[in-house]
């Protein structure tokens, strides 16, 4: 009996399906081991990168094959989850590259930083592959707890500690709501698996179950920063160290969406209108608030809220979209474009910030095109991509998302949404205006300092934004 369970768990299928998670987990253990010996610490970067490479390799193994369902159907690996895993690898790499040489006072804690980062990444992989409410919860906490620590990582700075605490308190609250919701769902339906919940067509007649589902969705909405659960975002994004902000803005959002997609199929069709309304309100709240920001990180935080709203529009369209898997592909592509765009943009901010030691404001960006033409050009590209201008990944992502809404017969919502994206250009252009069209401010000058790794990463992000916009063929065919 015991050997039977053991052989089932250790089968080739199980190993294949959980490959990316195992890679991250082993990486974490290796890094912890390295911390014990001072002599081995130079190997840290090598181990870190090898872990990412192994995770990416493991993800590609399940990318083109049939869907693998393991652990009694609570965890799956298919082309979609593999694509998400690849995206998480990219997110982690971006956050790691921009984090090098960023921490001054905490430089001796770099090992901890890397371990926390990898642990969080393993949580994201678990979230994306889970098809069970509890497995997802394990993933969510594996992601969140390291993030609480990372948000407060610059412990000598008040705002960083404040961000960590804020995120911890509100995040725990969301986690509690999630658990309560899962308990309600279990009480109402007798199952925790998504397939089991989906099979119950009488969900609406079960007050307990439907309340539970609503609580689950609310908790996930908190993680993806959707109206009205978005208010923590600007404070936490602003206070957290910039490389961590990069990770939160792209990674957490992606992992939560990865689970929201299969969960959405368990929702009653009637919720489409409500979700669309929430999506539009989120876009409005994010974009209008971003218009009046002066601090760049805060501005990008609000812009991130608006982008979450845009992606939520595809979730609203999922019920009526005749194109099966269209919403999933749209959100994946949008999220990939957003990861490289926002990742690159936040990354450039870490570079500027590390040089001056002060937060980057729009005012401080004035005249940057003359001083640092490379950074200004890259930041412009990222702003255009965030604004959804063609020839960038942001445009095609926008196209795919609004295609879902149009196919799902939500044309009025699509028109309101896309007009709200025009509002967004108002502030993206303001940044370009400051860099290119206004003369340098006298108070703040940005001295040049070379951080080759960060520069290379910014270049890779810019290249990816262009590739996703101009040559998206491979991604559209294989990433779905």
């Amino acid at each position, binding site marked *: 009996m015991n050997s039977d369970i053991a052989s089932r768990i250790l089968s080739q299928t199980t190993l294949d399906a959980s490959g990316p998670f195992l890679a991250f987990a082993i990486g974490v253990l290796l890094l912890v081991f390295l911390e014990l010996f001072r002599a081995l610490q130079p190997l840290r970067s090598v181990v870190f990168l090898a872990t990412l490479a192994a995770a990416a390799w493991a993800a590609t193994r399940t990318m083109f094959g049939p869907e693998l369902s393991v652990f009694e159907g609570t965890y799956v690996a298919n082309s979609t989850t593999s694509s998400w895993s690849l995206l998480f690898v990219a997110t982690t790499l971006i956050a790691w590259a921009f984090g090098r040489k960023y921490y001054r006072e905490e430089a001796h804690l770099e090992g901890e930083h890397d371990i926390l980062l990898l642990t969080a990444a393993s949580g994201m992989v678990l979230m994306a592959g889970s098809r069970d409410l509890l497995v997802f919860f394990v993933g969510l906490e594996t992601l969140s707890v390291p993030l609480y620590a990372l948000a407060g990582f610059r412990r000598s700075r008040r705002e960083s500690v404040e961000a960590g605490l804020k995120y911890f308190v509100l995040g725990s609250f969301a986690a509690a709501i999630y658990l309560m919701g899962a308990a309600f769902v279990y009480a109402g339906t007798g199952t925790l698996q998504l397939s089991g919940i989906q099979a119950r067509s009488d969900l609406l007649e079960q007050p307990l179950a439907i309340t539970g589902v609503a609580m689950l969705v609310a908790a996930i909405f908190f993680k993806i920063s959707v109206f009205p659960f978005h208010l923590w975002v600007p404070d936490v994004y602003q206070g957290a160290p910039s490389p961590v902000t990069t990770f939160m803005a792209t990674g957490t959002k992606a992992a939560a969406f990865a689970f929201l997609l299969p969960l959405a199929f368990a929702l009653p069709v009637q919720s489409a209108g409500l979700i669309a309304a929430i999506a539009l309100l989120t876009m409005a709240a994010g974009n209008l608030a971003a218009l009046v920001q002066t601090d760049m990180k805060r501005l990008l935080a609000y812009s991130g809220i608006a982008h979450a709203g845009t992606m939520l529009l595809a979730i609203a369209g999922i019920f009526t979209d005749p194109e099966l898997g269209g919403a999933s592909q749209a959100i994946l592509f949008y999220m990939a474009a957003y990861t490289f765009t926002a990742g690159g943009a936040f990354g450039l901010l870490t570079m500027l910030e590390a040089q001056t030691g002060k937060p980057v404001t729009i005012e401080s960006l004035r005249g940057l095109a003359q001083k640092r033409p490379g950074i200004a050009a890259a930041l412009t590209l990222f702003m255009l991509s965030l604004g959804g201008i*063609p020839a960038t990944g942001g445009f095609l992502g926008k196209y795919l998302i609004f*295609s879902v809404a*149009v196919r799902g017969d939500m044309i009025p919502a*699509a028109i309101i949404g896309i007009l709200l994206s025009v509002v967004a250009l108002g502030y993206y252009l303001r940044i370009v205006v400051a860099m290119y069209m206004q003369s340098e401010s006298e108070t703040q000058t940005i001295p040049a300092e070379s951080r080759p790794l960060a520069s290379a990463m910014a270049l890779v992000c810019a290249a990816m934004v262009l590739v996703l916009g101009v040559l998206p063929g491979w991604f559209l065919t294989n990433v779905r």
Partner: protein
Amino acid sequence: MAINVMTLSVLVFLPLLGALLIAATPKKAVGMQRGIALLTTLAVAWIGIALCLRFDGSSAAMQFTEVAPWFTLPGGIDVHYRLGMDGISVLLVGLTAILGPIVVLSTWGHIHVRVKEFMVWLLAMQTGMLGVFLSLDLILFYVFWETSLIPLYFILGIWGGERRLYATIKFFLYTFAGSVVMLIAAIWLIWTAETTDVVRLLDIAGRMPVETQTWLFAAFALAFAIKVPLMPFHTWLPDAHTEAPTSGSVILAGVLLKMGTYGLLRYGIQMFPGAALEAAPWMMALGVLGIVYGAFLAMAQTDVKRLIACSSVSHLGYVVLGLFALTEAGLRGSLLQMVNHGLSTGLLFLLIGMIYERRHTRALDQYGGIAGVMPIFALFLVFAVLSSVGLPGLNGFVGEYLILLGTWEASPWLAAIAVTGVVFGAIYLLMATRKMLFGPLVHSENKSLSDLNGREVALMLPIVVLCVWIGVQPNVFLDRTDASLRDVTSRIEHARSARTASIEATPVHRLEIEAR
């Protein structure tokens, strides 16, 4: 195997290649940057003219077509990289190609800071504009349509006048808001028709029910009407023109606005003929309103550049009027007038730029009696004004005449009102010319103005030659457009007969329902 450079892809992407080359030059090498820009635009002009000459005007089919697979959208819709030229785009491509080197040469006088960036944006813009005219794939068209906003955004924002930031953002947000609504319509159209091929879409969309067409037409036309700009969406234009550097104004008036009128013809009338028939009275009314309102606006201006910008609103009103007369004469006239407006208004902006470089003011009352000091300038200005007001023998006359003829066939009343615009146009332009050139030389600063130099004369000569050539032999140009325009009119006739049939059929239908 010799590589064929006479292709549309080379034409479209050569400017971008030049831009990348310039971007790689050292910042201080201004001479090299200008040289590369000039050589590139000359090569583009050469290829563009050669292709226009080779173009077979007797066929309505797309010519010099190029197709390559690009990517696949969900639902298995294949997006292609597709270029091609027909009678609707041929003249506009020629215009864009010819204006290139002229604009580059004109920057010698007024762009002295950040020359490198300017040339990069200028060339990138040419790629965008040519792409808009030559794209035969709706996605590709949209990509060019929106990316062509970016270069002008920078040109206006960096090298513009005092209120440039306001004008830049206004211009961008206005035009962007219009085009995103078009994007939603395009998404729906592509999904329904299951293709992005414009040639196939023209047939599929034309067969859609008129009500569907009308919704799509409204969304597409909004984007184009803002770009043209048609009254009441015109307010961004005077601001943009006033603040833009000379070369920016020339491109804006010369080519960029034509993207709007081209769009109205291709993606409005040709694609949705049924809806165009329904909308024609409204669009014509807006056109006439623009003619008269633009003329009145122009009369009230004291800034000469703003005056010409307002006259653009008036002149483009003619183009829209002629297009939506939906008659052969109207369409021919409009297409020709697009080119004419590009040439004569481009010339006017060049001249205003040249005098501004010398005198640093555009206020009309700061001039007077310049003709004595700058006779060559005066000669060119009078020529440009006469071409603009439609003096017989010059280009403007042919276009306006054909437009009014076509409008007369559709609606004599509107034609009668539109004629007043011709009169007003003559009044304000000639009055401004008189104030600038003739009368006593009151301002002493004007006495020492130097006349145009060789470069300035040389860069304007091609435009002058074209103005006269179109005026004398319009058929050389019109012949190339005829076959394609006949295709448009046949679509309109088809839609018209379908409408008549449906109107006749309606009472029967109603009786049937009542009987039930």
